[in-house]
């Protein structure tokens, strides 16, 4: 017979297939880290803007850097060197430390100063104004500033460039020492650097931080301590911590798992082969996601591997059920109804995530469904060929037999179930914390002391408030600038009333073409200006002809084409303009950022009256999270119904269906109650964990139910479920004691769930011990024979 040869060929082909698929995945897989993948599609305009701003917004990208540990002058030098090298770096869009060298004003833009500054809006460049200015300049000349100003005067006797540079400074300037920003104590030099990578791109942020370190070393800043803060830095920090934690957890659980399985099965070969289903599941799952979606989110991977961890149970059932006189292939065939029901119902349940409207969850569905299906099929059709004969029969175990009898003898009063539900209800409603966690930030929580430090540094720097934005959508850039100018008086009055401390928008740097043209119209022509200057100079000590360069500049400003944003973008202003104004789908979107918002309601009222959108990022993100949760809950409800349907069809009896589903349903209630009682507000991670718990509970119950009539099968099932639940418990109990809230959110529910599932499956699913012999008689001869 060529049977065994075919079997080995099949096994070898399978392993080769998995390996080559793995190699393909390795080369193709792109792991993304954009948190937005796990957020639902925006349903409101505010949410759309939020999704644009999260991680990409100006505030989220800006890293705050503090330098300390040296005399102020050295800190200032280091700060300048740092800004210089960061401005040239490809990892950063711009960096600022308050240092605005006059020379940075582009030479060819100098004539534009009269179009960019509001000076001539309220006055003319006439003899009276010029006379006043020249008198001041004469005094400047004989002041200590004279040496500095003298070279500027022929071209700019009104010192308009200085006025403009001053106007462009942030509304709330930090303290300055040696020309750069310092904190109030004067001990820390402060600067801001905006990364090219979005905040939620730990890879890009890591590169940016490395660049920052390099730049500091390049600045020769020995002994200077650098503190970095900001969303991007936090994402790198949290990723590193999670990675480190998962690293040791992974090692610990792998060793514990190996020990447990060796103790349980005492066969190294079986152990190795038992990894095949999970391995196949992982590789096929990744390949499926990669093929369908192109990239996979880091969270999908983490959750996905957590969820398909249940596939490790499949081969364990097979191993536990092997015994003499029957081939592994036959064992697999007999287990298949229970296994198939479990795999199919879990797959169908997860499949509902595919339609949740959240891309990350759709990826998760794709990964788990394909992975679990492959794991089930591997366990049924491939793995048995690898397992030889001569395994120990756990059906003959005296210890397991006694254990089973002891459990069977336990009283199972109905009031206990009612009492359990009552206790759960009490825990449920007595808890005072909100039921749901709406704060997006809590998904990857940053230690409070770091957040505190970040707030403090940003307050010192007066950086824009992270939370509020005003958004204007316009047809093009000139339109956007014009609308910003319309808004300006209202914003100025809000600063006046103290509702906000300051604001920033693109029109502060580049006025609309209309405004620039109006200013051009107010500029005198060369003849008129020359006459006015001559009159103004009469009783000043200045020589008659020294201001010809000034007259030439004004003439150039009068006839030049207005300064466009495209042209301004090529200047040092470009970086700031790029944040405040961008084109989105052929339209132009202008942002107004704020500092020191004390009255958000006033901003909202202003936005409403001017057709702008007031964006409260915190509020929008909370409604977004709530919306996402609603979608997940609907998915879960549909999943529950589908699961019920699949199990009912497979078991063909309402009583059996109830026995199988009761432990799972009750466990969900128990887990929720324990979470509530321990002060946990539920988030996305808890919900996904509950799905895993339900899947585990269903499997345990199905196998107990399957073995209900046969004492040996009962012992083997008890062995299998014991090993399965112990191994799962080990892994998730370790996660539950982790420092990281994300891992705890997964570990705690599953730990409670595994214990509860196991206990309840034993108590509720297996039939009464008294009935055992009767049922056995009614079943077919094959199983009776097997028991002997």
């Amino acid at each position: 017979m060529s049977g065994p040869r075919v079997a080995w060929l099949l096994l070898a082909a399978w392993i080769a297939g998995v390996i080559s698929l793995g190699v393909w995945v390795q080369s193709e897989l792109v792991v993304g880290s954009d948190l937005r993948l796990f957020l639902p599609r925006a349903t409101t305009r505010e949410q759309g803007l939020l999704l644009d701003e999260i991680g990409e917004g100006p505030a989220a990208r800006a890293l705050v850097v503090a330098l300390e540990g040296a005399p102020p002058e050295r800190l200032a030098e280091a700060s300048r060197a740092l800004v210089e090298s960061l401005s040239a770096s490809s990892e950063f869009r711009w960096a600022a430390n308050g240092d605005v060298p006059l020379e940075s004003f582009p030479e060819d833009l100098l004539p534009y100063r009269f179009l960019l500054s509001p000076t001539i809006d309220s006055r003319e460049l006439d003899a009276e104004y010029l006379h006043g200015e020249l008198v001041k300049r004469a005094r400047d000349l004989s002041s200590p500033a004279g040496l500095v100003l003298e070279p500027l005067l022929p071209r700019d006797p009104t010192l308009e460039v200085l006025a403009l540079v001053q106007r462009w400074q942030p509304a709330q300037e930090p303290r300055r020492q040696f020309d750069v920003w310092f904190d109030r104590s004067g001990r820390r030099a402060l600067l801001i650097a905006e990364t090219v990578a979005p905040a939620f791109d730990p890879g890009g942020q890591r590169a940016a931080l490395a660049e920052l370190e390099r730049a500091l070393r390049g600045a020769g800043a020995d002994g200077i301590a650098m503190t970095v803060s900001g969303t991007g830095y936090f994402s790198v920090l949290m990723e590193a911590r999670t990675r480190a934690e998962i690293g040791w957890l992974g090692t610990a659980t792998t060793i514990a798992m190996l020990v447990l399985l060796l103790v349980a099965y005492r066969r190294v070969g079986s152990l190795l082969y038992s990894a095949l289903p999970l391995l196949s599941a992982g590789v096929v799952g990744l390949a499926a996601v990669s093929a369908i979606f192109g990239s996979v989110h880091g969270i999908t991977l983490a959750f996905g591997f957590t969820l398909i961890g249940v596939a490790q149970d499949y081969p364990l059932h097979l191993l536990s059920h092997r015994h003499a006189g029957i081939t592994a292939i036959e064992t697999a065939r007999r287990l298949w109804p229970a296994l198939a029901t479990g795999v199919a119902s879990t797959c169908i349940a997860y499949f509902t995530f595919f339609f949740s409207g959240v891309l990350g969850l759709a990826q998760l569905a794709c990964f788990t469904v394909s992975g679990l299906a492959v794991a089930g099929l591997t366990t049924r059709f491939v793995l048995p060929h690898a397992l030889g004969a001569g395994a120990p029969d756990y059906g003959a175990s005296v210890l397991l037999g006694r254990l089973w009898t002891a459990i069977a003898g336990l009283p199972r009063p109905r009031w206990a179930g009612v009492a359990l539900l009552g206790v759960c209800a009490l825990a449920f409603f007595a808890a005072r914390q909100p039921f749901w966690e709406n704060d997006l930030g809590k998904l990857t929580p940053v230690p409070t002391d770091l957040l505190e430090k970040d707030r403090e540094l940003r307050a010192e720097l007066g950086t824009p408030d992270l939370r509020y934005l005003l958004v204007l959508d316009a047809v093009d850039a000139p339109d956007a600038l014009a609308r910003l100018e319309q808004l300006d008086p209202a914003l100025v009055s809000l600063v006046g009333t103290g509702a906000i401390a300051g604001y920033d928008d693109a029109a502060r740097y580049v006025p609309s073409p209309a405004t620039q043209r109006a200013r051009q119209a107010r500029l005198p022509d060369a003849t008129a200006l020359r006459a006015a200057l001559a009159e103004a100079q009469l009783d000043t000590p200045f020589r008659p002809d020294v201001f010809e360069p000034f007259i030439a500049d004004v003439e150039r400003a009068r006839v030049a084409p207005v300064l466009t944003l495209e042209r301004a973008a090529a200047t040092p202003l470009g970086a700031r303009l790029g944040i405040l104004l961008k084109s989105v789908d052929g339209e132009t979107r202008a942002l107004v950022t704020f500092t020191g918002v004390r009255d958000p309601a006033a901003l909202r009222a202003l936005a409403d009256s001017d057709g702008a959108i007031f964006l409260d990022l915190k509020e929008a993100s909370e409604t977004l999270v709530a919306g996402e949760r609603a979608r997940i809950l609907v998915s879960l409800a549909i999943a529950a119904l589908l699961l019920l349907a699949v199990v009912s069809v497979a078991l063909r009896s309402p009583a059996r269906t109830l026995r199988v589903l009761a432990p799972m349903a009750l466990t969900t209630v128990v887990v929720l109650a324990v979470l509530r009682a321990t002060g946990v507000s539920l988030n996305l991670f808890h919900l996904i964990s509950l799905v895993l718990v339900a899947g585990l509970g269903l499997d345990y119950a199905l196998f107990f139910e399957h073995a209900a009539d046969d004492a040996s099968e009962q012992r083997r099932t008890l062995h299998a479920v014991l090993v399965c639940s112990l191994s799962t418990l080990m892994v998730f109990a370790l996660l539950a004691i982790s420092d990281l809230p994300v891992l705890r959110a997964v570990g705690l529910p599953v730990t409670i769930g595994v214990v509860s599932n196991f206990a309840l499956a034993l108590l509720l699913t297996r039939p009464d011990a008294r009935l055992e012999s009767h049922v056995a008689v009614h079943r077919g001869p094959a199983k009776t024979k097997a028991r002997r």
Partner: protein
Amino acid sequence: MRILLALSVCLLSPRAWGDAVADPESLIHRLARTAPASVGFVEVRYSSLLRAPIVVSGELTYLGPARLDRDVTAPYREHTAIRDESVSIEREGEQPRTLALRRAPELRGLLTGFSGVLAGDSAAVKRSFAIAAKGADDAWTLELTPLDPGMQRRLDRIVVTGAAGEPRCLLVFGPHEAATVMLLGAAALNLRADVALAQLLEHCRAE
């Protein structure tokens, strides 16, 4: 510029002076003042932008190293406070103006030199300037030439004249015929408003 150079060469030519002073360092030590110390001044500003020099008068107060007040009282009022790295200038009816010294190497040079002389800190002066002294005890000249090329472009040199331990004039020569002559204490008396630079230099040298 050439005229200025010629004039200063004339000013510094040894034949005009008596016994040679020892060395610039001991001269700087002799000029040291203990803070606070005040002296009246008249300052004449020459520039290629100007038809006639601008003359202002007031009081100079030395408050310690790198701390100096300059108060103009006529023909208008102006208060300048120099504190370490920043200079703030206030004038009645105008926004105060703050300058960072780092931005203005010529100004920093001037103040380092000046403050260094008043503190008697020849080492501080020598960090930024080449120093030379000429003349005799009863009429000497101390000349500071900036070492830094950036400063050189905007500050030609600083010259202090005086007799015994008393400075008489502080002269600052910039590029393009820019020059400031500050007459201190008694030297400021009896000065004609329309005085030409040549006459002024003579005045600084005279007893």
